[in-house]
């Protein structure tokens, strides 16, 4: 179903037809579908925003907010920026959209705690979007690792910290996420993530002189 829709939409977006406002209802429905089915199609969503840009009278705040939220699920890709660049400035300050912008800001600055707090304040925002929180958790895992590695204190364990950063989920859920990320819990309260020695090393770049460039001088010196 989703695949069929994706193909239909792709054919709508070919060539000059991409700018045909008559396609807008279909595309808007497709945005909704992505939210419900937890699928994602950046190109189609950008086409919607572009149609709004060309036909400001057809603009719909709800759809725009939905597109922006979906873009967040594809972090760390910079889809959110791509969407933002197509929305008129005064629309960005409208309540619904500006709420999403705030969430985006917290995520972009890796301020996950604040992110979950403001999400709690506005649970309505996510109505109709399946899998949003888990997408964020997946993204967060990529960067949490730094945080977890450094948090255990006498006051709380790394796992607790992780629990908080994932949005106050239960202890078992946290364990599930830990194994999903491929990490291991350790007895001392730390979470072992991965050995970084191999990936992050001091690099020494030394000069290499190509044969061709030397050959050119030698030829000139004859």
């Amino acid at each position, binding site marked *: 179903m989703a695949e069929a829709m994706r193909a239909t939409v792709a054919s709508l977006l070919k*060539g*000059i037809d991409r*700018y*045909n*406002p*008559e396609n807008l209802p279909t595309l808007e429905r497709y945005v909704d579908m992505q939210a419900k089915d937890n699928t994602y199609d*950046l*190109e189609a969503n*950008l086409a919607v925003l*572009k149609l709004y*840009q*060309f*036909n*400001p009278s057809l603009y719909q705040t709800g759809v725009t907010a939905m597109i922006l939220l979906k873009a967040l699920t594809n972090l*760390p*890709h*910079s889809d959110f*920026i*791509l969407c*933002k*660049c*197509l*929305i*008129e*400035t005064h629309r*960005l300050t409208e309540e619904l959209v500006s709420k999403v912008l705030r969430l985006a*800001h917290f995520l*972009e*600055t*890796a*301020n996950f705690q604040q992110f979950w707090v403001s999400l709690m304040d506005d649970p309505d925002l996510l109505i109709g979007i399946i899998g949003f929180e888990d997408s964020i958790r997946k993204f967060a895992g*990529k*960067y*949490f690792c*730094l*945080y977890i*590695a*450094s*948090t*255990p204190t006498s006051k709380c364990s790394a796992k607790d910290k992780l629990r908080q950063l994932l949005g106050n989920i239960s202890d078992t859920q946290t364990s599930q996420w830990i194994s999903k990320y491929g990490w291991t819990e350790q007895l001392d309260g*730390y979470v072992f993530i991965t050995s*970084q020695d191999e*990936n*992050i*090393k*001091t*690099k*020494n*770049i*030394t*000069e290499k*002189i190509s044969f061709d*460039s*030397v050959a*050119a*001088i030698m030829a*000139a*010196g004859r």
Partner: protein
Amino acid sequence: MSGTWANEIEPEYVPYYSGYGDYDMSHTGDPRQDLEYERQYASSYIVPEVIKNFLLYFQKYINQQDLPEIQNSYENGFNKLTDRFFKTSAWPEAESVIPIVGNDKRFLILYKELYYRHVYARVSGGPTLQQRFDSYYNYCNLFNYILNAEGPVPLELPDQWLWDIIDEFIYQFQAFSIFRHKSINKKTENEIEVLRTNPKIWNVHSVLNVLHSLVEKSNINKQLEVYTSGGDPDSVAGEFGRHSLYKMLGYFSLVGLLRLHSLLGDYYQALKVLENIDFNKKSLYSRVPACQITTFYYVGFAYMMMRRYQDAIRTLSNILLYIQRTKTMFQSRAQLYDQISKMNDKMYTLLSICLVLYPMRIDESVHSHLREKYQDKMNRMQKGEMQEFEASFAFACPKFLSPVPPNYDLTGAQTQFKEPFQLQLLVFKDEVEQQIQIPTIRSYLKLYTTLPISKLAAFMDMSDDELCTHLMCFKHKMKNLVWSKGTSGLEGEFQSASEVDFYIDKDMIHIADTKVARRYGDFFIRQFHKFDEIMRSLKAT
């Protein structure tokens, strides 16, 4: 497909020159302007003998399809005569040229292309509303002639000219969009009425349609695909695409679309239209330097906006190196040289922004120019001065535009035309603000190989928790999608090749620095070549 939208962009743009509906534009209602119009008209009746001869030869070369001579007339003849006779005034109007060249429709269209382009570029006061409209119709006639023919039209023009046509077409669209938004208060009621009743002229759909039609007619995407895989593009080019005129117009239209989408803030589409062009490789399509430079500028800019700094830096330094090496070639062509110098400065500025946000090693000679000219600015940005970021962005960004006409009734709003720029600036500033602590953190990290979190937190004057958030942000922002293979510029994989990377083990930050050995060999090789050149030119004299 039906409805007004479809009518707006159907390929039949306008009937062959048949006036503009209800508006007799030769009288504007403003006596001063009318007088000027008449004076201009009257004076253009006397066409100097040299000009006559030039036009006759030019016409002959085009009709004979003598490509080298067309190129010579286009690049040298026209510009030399412009400098002599029409430095700040317009060339003779097409009506005054008809008695000389006869009713040669094709030549007149091409002549008018040059005529209006010159009006936009050189004539003091710029084009009038009438001229903007006329130029639009002339482009429509030109593209109708090329696109609506039953078979390929028997015309070849130098690549440079074809590029200039596409480039100018978009430039005039851009100029018009800004013009209709700018200071509505200053326009006469008559002008506003004319703008209001002619929404289709320089309409974004028409412009997109022309570019898409040229792309489709030439099968350029298929051609490029086959070309990249080593095949013969002619095998898929089709009847039209085999002809140089269509092939090149198709290719330039792709670059035109790149530019147009960038001006509208649609960076995804901008890069997407180029997905079949392998611009990391020299190709037969890259013979027009101005086109190369435009391509790389917009690609570099799009990458920067998409937070793909590594790609932006690679793209920009490649083209800057290219300009550095070939600049002397353009010195004889003043206008082109000016244009390229301007782009050069803009791209260095973009590069400096990217390198502040994402320090990495670049080509030595580009780097040394950067150090010479942009060190102060870079230092200020490194210190987190938003104003400097803003100023650099404003200087180096393209002229963004709005695809829709302004609200002509809203006379109070003076700054409507700045709106699209404000939006892009806002997005850029938001991004920079999110990263603003990173250069400072990096400067501390650079000093150590291991550093306790608490110590760095004390340096930064923040709590351990806050610092950890910033460190995560550091990691996030420095992990860029980087192009690695294939022709599509949108593809890529996540990498972090910035100078400083780190990981945390318990409460210790372990830092990996990039150390670059000085490049002596490169320096000596350069000197060798320099001396060799001096010796040779000495011998020659």
